[in-house]
């Protein structure tokens, strides 16, 4: 059994995900997420020593496509989805600083 989930961990993850949570929500989600993690920890009771870790239930590898162009979306359709646009580009509030 690993360490129990702390309220600070939930607050940290919420901050990274840009979620604003009230005190009540923090308490509730800490409790709910703890239950999810506990459920996952049930796996620890199984003997998995001889199994290789996998991220997929399917045994697929190397799913690739040929390097052939396909039609893109109409420019008008694309720009219609933008909250605001200028010069054919998506306009967003001015970004301070550079991408991480």
């Amino acid at each position, binding site marked *: 059994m690993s360490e129990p989930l702390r309220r600070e961990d939930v607050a940290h993850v919420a*901050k990274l995900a840009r979620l604003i949570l009230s005190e009540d929500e923090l308490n509730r989600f800490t409790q709910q997420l703890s239950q999810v993690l506990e459920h996952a920890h049930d796996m620890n009771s199984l003997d998995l020593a001889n199994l290789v870790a996998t991220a*997929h239930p399917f045994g697929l590898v*190397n799913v*690739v496509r*040929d390097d052939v162009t396909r039609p*893109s979306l109409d420019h008008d359709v694309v720009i219609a989805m933008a909250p605001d646009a200028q010069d054919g580009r*998506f306009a967003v509030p001015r970004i301070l600083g*550079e991408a991480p």
Partner: protein
Amino acid sequence: MSLTNGWEMVVGLEVHTELKTATKMFCGCANSFGSLPNTNVCPVCLGLPGSLPVLNARAVELAMAIGVALHSTIAPSTFHRKNYFYPDMPKDFQISQYDLPINVGGFLDLPDGSRISIERAHLEEDTGKSTHLGGSGRIHGADRSLVDYNRSGVPLVEIVSGPDIRSSTQARDYASELRGILMATGASDGRMEEGSMRIDANVSVRKVGQPLGTRCEIKNLNSLRSLQRAIDYEAHRQTVILEEGGRVRQETRHWDENLATTSTMRVKEEADDYRYFREPDLVDLIPDEAWQARIREGLPPMPAERRSMLGARLHEPSDSLLGAVSVVVDLDLDAYVSSARDAGVPAELALPRAANELATDLGGLSNLSFEAFTATLLMERSGELSPTQAKSVLAELLASGGEPRAIAAKKGYEQLETGAVASVVAQLIEEHPDEWSRYRDGDEKLAQFFIGQVMKRTKGQANGKDVIAELHAKR
């Protein structure tokens, strides 16, 4: 530049190169530079809900080609989501290889004989391109950013070197050699000015023999010159801090080309928690032996091998000839030199003509066949054309194509009879008695003086060899 007072710099480079594929990494949108904004976009690269990525086989092959060229091991690999918020990345995560990259280890040998280790070269997708308005006051009243997603999802390979680089010159040589390799593999067009190759530099300093110091990362250097200047500036900045008893703070810094300084972009902190996790919409990438073998066999010669092939035929490899070899390989002019050489033109003549004359008008190469280049040099070799005339015929061929002999005739390059050269030389001796007697007394420099005078008087139509022969005869 190197540091003084027992300090040394320790530098590792992360080079991002866009791959020269027809389509993006995970969708069929065109991967092309310079299209109208937001015309090469679809639900996948715009991150619309429900869209699913499918990996581009060509991107995998180019990544493997880079790995083979860098002596890496091609390994089973996976894709992760790197989560962060920024408007140029509409999915709010970037798909990147993380703990299991496609290429592991390797090395790159530099022309000076030093070897830089390669830690990894992995696949990832590029982000969109944002333009920041306002602030600078260029566009009045505008205080926002504009985003073009044409670049979003373009395949990239990031090549991470070991911290083996010890000077800014070595860093530049590494980047330049790597650029040549990326172009030779066909993976990249190497156009740094268009952003298709971008470099981050990790720089720290220490006293020689001491443990590694705290490093700073300088982001997005997009020319070899910026790379070299930024590293020099940063190493100096850190040395001054440490000399004064201060401590270097680990941070990301931005290079300002105009101010020639680096400045803090952000301090490493919580923001760097990217919550990496496996991309559930992509399966493992495990290129089998047959696929790898096809890449290995299809790989053309790399710049180092091409340089040694061109240099091997030189009888006396002077610095200037070796410099010409480098230029010829950098500019991909090898085929001109080798076809001239195969026709009997000495490499000593073909190399400088390619490195100097052809290099000045690369756009004109489509007008110049290997045969025309070779024919011009054969005429120069036989003395039918003087060097000046041969250069001018090459310039004309590059500008508008044609046939060397016809161009020479049109320009009136019919060389003077030996008799005519003799009479011009005789005339000059009469006019310059002092120079002539110094030449007779053994001052060889004056041969050049007389050749120059003859060329001037004959408008370049005399053959230099004939002039020398005439000078020797009269001496």
